């Protein structure tokens, strides 16, 4: 399949995976991450193949625009309008090179009746960016629209501390690589704690993704990380489940009561 056909908006579809706030017993949806899939039945249905291909073709800018358009359309048709924020993955290279990206987002959001203050841009840094000034300017323009900024896959690949300084993010998102197994691995917990410490010091909330095990979820909660995403809570869907499974909620509630009793 040719790239220009692939990036036709109708070829791409969007699924959404909720991020839950487990700080209260309600475990409400905090936001929904838009995840793009290529055409069903092709190699590109798998997101990793789709985006590796796009990056190999150096078409991140075009692809990011197409993915956002697909996400906005899907949000309008699939999700209740009352839902909270929508998070969008954007390559650092797009923020660096696409000089009209913030205006594009503003116009498209307006077309779909989406309040830009409900948007979070998750910066993906799959390859290093060179021009900090343009990236910072694009982020400032997005912020002026009320868009909030998150760093995706912090600590993985090119997702590095330089971006924390340049992007001045509102959120730091920890990849599954660091999260999965953290209950049993002190080294993972040390790294998570260090990011949590950075977040507290800089005023950024930490989001943990890839949570698949109850023991990891309880470990993260004990570390005061309350924004959680992962298959344990909800798989990506169109539309996705918008409530934490009752079994998970029950364990969280029970553990909370045990904690209160212990503190008494």
């Amino acid at each position, binding site marked *: 399949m040719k790239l220009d056909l692939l990036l036709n908006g109708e070829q791409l579809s969007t699924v959404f995976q909720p991020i839950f706030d487990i700080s209260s017993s309600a475990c409400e949806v905090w936001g929904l991450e838009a995840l793009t899939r290529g055409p069903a039945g092709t*190699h590109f249905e*798998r997101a*990793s*193949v*789709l985006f590796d*291909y796009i990056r*190999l*073709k150096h078409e991140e800018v075009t692809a990011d625009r197409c993915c956002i358009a697909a996400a906005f359309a899907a949000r309008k048709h699939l999700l209740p309008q009352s839902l909270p924020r929508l998070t969008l993955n954007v390559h650092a290279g797009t923020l660096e090179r696409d000089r009209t990206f913030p205006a594009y987002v503003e116009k498209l959001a307006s077309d779909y009746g989406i309040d830009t203050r409900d948007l979070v841009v998750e910066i993906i840094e799959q390859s290093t960016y060179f021009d900090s000034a343009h990236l910072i300017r694009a982020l400032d323009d997005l912020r002026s629209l009320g868009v909030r900024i998150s760093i995706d896959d912090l600590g993985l690949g090119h997702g590095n501390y330089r971006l924390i300084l340049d992007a001045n993010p509102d959120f730091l998102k920890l990849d599954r690589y660091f999260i999965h197994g953290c209950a049993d691995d002190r080294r993972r917990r040390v790294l998570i704690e260090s990011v949590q410490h950075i977040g507290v010091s800089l005023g950024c909330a930490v989001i943990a993704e890839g949570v698949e095990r109850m023991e990891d979820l309880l470990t993260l909660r004990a570390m005061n990380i309350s924004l959680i995403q992962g298959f344990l809570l909800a798989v990506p869907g169109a539309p996705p489940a918008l409530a934490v499974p009752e079994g998970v909620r029950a364990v969280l509630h029970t553990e909370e009561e045990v904690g209160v009793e212990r503190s008494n």
Partner: protein
Amino acid sequence: MPSRILIIDDEPALMAALRDYLEQQGFICECVAEVAEAQALLANVHFDVVLTDIYISPLQEADGLHILSFIRERALDVRLVVMTAHSTPELKAEALRLGASVVLQKPTSLAVLASALAAAAVVPA
């Protein structure tokens, strides 16, 4: 378990014929006509054998060698069979240096090709 083959060539008719024949022989085949698509697949999906042409249009550069280099750089656990209509001793030597098990001259019979793939599939990478 059937061997999974990734076929990289820019001739649709040839790929269709290869796929039909090889699937009859018990292989599972994926076909792509573009180097970047092949690389994206290889980075995310396991194949037992890659069968690649060397010259893949429209660039007409030795793109098959790029595939071989890509696999070598990532130390992917996959065997390599190369076919080309423009084999030179230098090109063949370079393909073998980059990890090809065998370099076949196009045109070659489907039976010879299937035999080379079957032999490559059972040899440790």
